[in-house]
């Protein structure tokens, strides 16, 4: 067992470098595979038994007292019916409350926006499963997260106030979703997020549908390279009918 100093880039809550990395995944085989990769890098992998930590409070307490860093999959429940939280909720709390470097991993399923978006502002690093097969990408992800914890957001995650145009509303298995185009972002892909991020009243499909064609302002990280990396903060829930109301949007 060795300690990975990572050029002293990581200042961790425990010790001066990463030694123990907790790995959480509902697919235990996948968790072990990631663990082997970390061990090849000289780290100690702690493959977590999810049955021991059925709720997010327990998980935060358990992980934060046993690991210096975390690799966590988004889906923690399908193979463990008793698990009442997902990886995004856990990682967001570990980063914001305990300043523990984390990497959230996912298959980038269509519902990533619904599960991750509410927490994305406190989840610095989101990797695809494919990327987790590369040890250097995992280590770079932990380094990037540690850097944001220590020094604040880099250019890709700095936010700017812009308008968002609600293009669509619809029901998903995770609740009512909105798709919104981001003003001033380089890409045309709409950002998907739970309608409840704009207020509890929009959990109703009819209320959410009424937002289609309207604009609201929020602070968005315009440096995001792709849609899963987008997040928004401080939404101003004063919906605007764009000037020129005779225009037919949508």
């Amino acid at each position, binding site marked *: 067992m060795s300690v990975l100093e990572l050029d002293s880039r990581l200042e961790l809550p425990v010790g001066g470098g990463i030694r123990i990395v907790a790995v959480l995944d509902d697919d235990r085989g996948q968790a072990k595979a990631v663990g082997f990769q970390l061990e090849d890098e000289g780290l100690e992998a702690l493959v977590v038994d999810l049955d021991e930590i059925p709720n997010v409070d327990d998980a935060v307490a358990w992980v934060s007292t046993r690991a210096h860093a975390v690799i966590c999959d988004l889906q923690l429940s399908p193979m463990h019916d008793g698990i009442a939280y997902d990886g995004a909720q856990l990682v967001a709390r570990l980063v914001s409350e305990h300043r523990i470097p984390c990497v959230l991993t996912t298959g980038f399923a269509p519902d990533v926006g619904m599960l991750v978006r509410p927490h994305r502002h406190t989840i610095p690093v989101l990797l695809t499963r494919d990327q987790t097969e590369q040890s250097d990408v995992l280590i770079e992800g932990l380094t990037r997260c540690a850097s944001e914890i220590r020094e604040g957001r880099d250019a890709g995650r700095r936010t700017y106030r812009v308008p968002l145009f609600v293009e669509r509303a619809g029901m998903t298995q995770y609740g009512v979703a909105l798709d919104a185009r981001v003003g*001033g972002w*380089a890409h045309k892909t709409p950002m998907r997020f739970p309608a409840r991020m704009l207020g509890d009243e929009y959990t109703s499909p009819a209320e959410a549908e009424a937002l289609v064609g309207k604009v609201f302002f929020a602070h968005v990280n315009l440096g995001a390279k792709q849609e899963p990396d987008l997040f928004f903060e401080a939404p101003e829930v004063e919906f605007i009918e764009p000037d020129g109301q005779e225009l037919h949007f949508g």
Partner: protein
Amino acid sequence: MTAALHVLDVGHGNCALACGENWTVMVDAAPDPAVVETVDQLTLRRLDTLVVSHRDRDHARGVVPLLSDRKLEIGCLFVPADAAKDPTTPETALLLAALGDAKRSGRCQVSRDLDDSLPEGTLDGGGLKVEVLAPTYATAMTGPRGRSPAGGTITSNGASAVLRITLPDGLRVLLPGDADHVTFEDLARVGTDLSADVLVFPHHGSHSVVPDEERFARDVMLAVRPQTVLFSVGRQRRGRPTEAVLRGVLRADANVYVACTQLSRGCLSSDEHLPRPTELGHLAPLPASGRSSCQSCAGSMTLSGAGLSAPNSVAHQAYVTTVADRPLCRTLRPALEDQVAQSS
């Protein structure tokens, strides 16, 4: 602040920022964070003039975060009407929402009246001279989809504003947006003097609608007679500047200094051979879209004095030599092309 004009690396698109004594003029704003980051880095609280040369997204969409920034005042935004743009798209709604927000809070005035009839001195300030050379009054009255006074159909590009900004030290920079052959024929019709020391080449060095790109580039060069030609290009867009345009530029003036914001795929085709971040030490200390991905070539550039003041031209050339497989800004120079032809 020393007066200067910055040509920002915004990937595919354009943004130029001229800074005089307490006076700033921005021309075009591509949807790239380098635009707002530069405003932040220079701690600008006011853009006295913001010109959108035409309504294509790579020139116009970046005004949305500028308009939405509550700490930023915009003296006057010149944005043209364009019948060729679908008014029902989300992009239009977002622009209108940002404009409405800025106007309601008194942060911005808006005008569509930008053409060569604007009285001389209207946009000048802080030692900067800002001339509107195009669209001509006749073209602006017609607009995109109309018939050009010089013949041919006016497109969004053809109606592009062409500005010449002169810095207090006398350096003249021509910013032609995406002006095409119809624009230049219209300017020739009215006898406009286009001379400048620096040319930001129109339409990122690619003119698929122009019958003969090389000849077009040569004609533009002969009209402007610049010592420095810059291309604002995104590496993700293939073949910009095109070899034909570069050949036209270099055959018009074999000694002209050429620099691109990003490394063209024509110069280095494979991303596997992009440099490491530590090899980008030549870049000017300005935000640049290609910096983190190591796609910048000259990156964001600062013009003052005799021309390019940052990055240092020697350092930039050394970087090109190191990184590019086939640096087109050199290999297409007539003397070198002739040598290659003779040796083969």
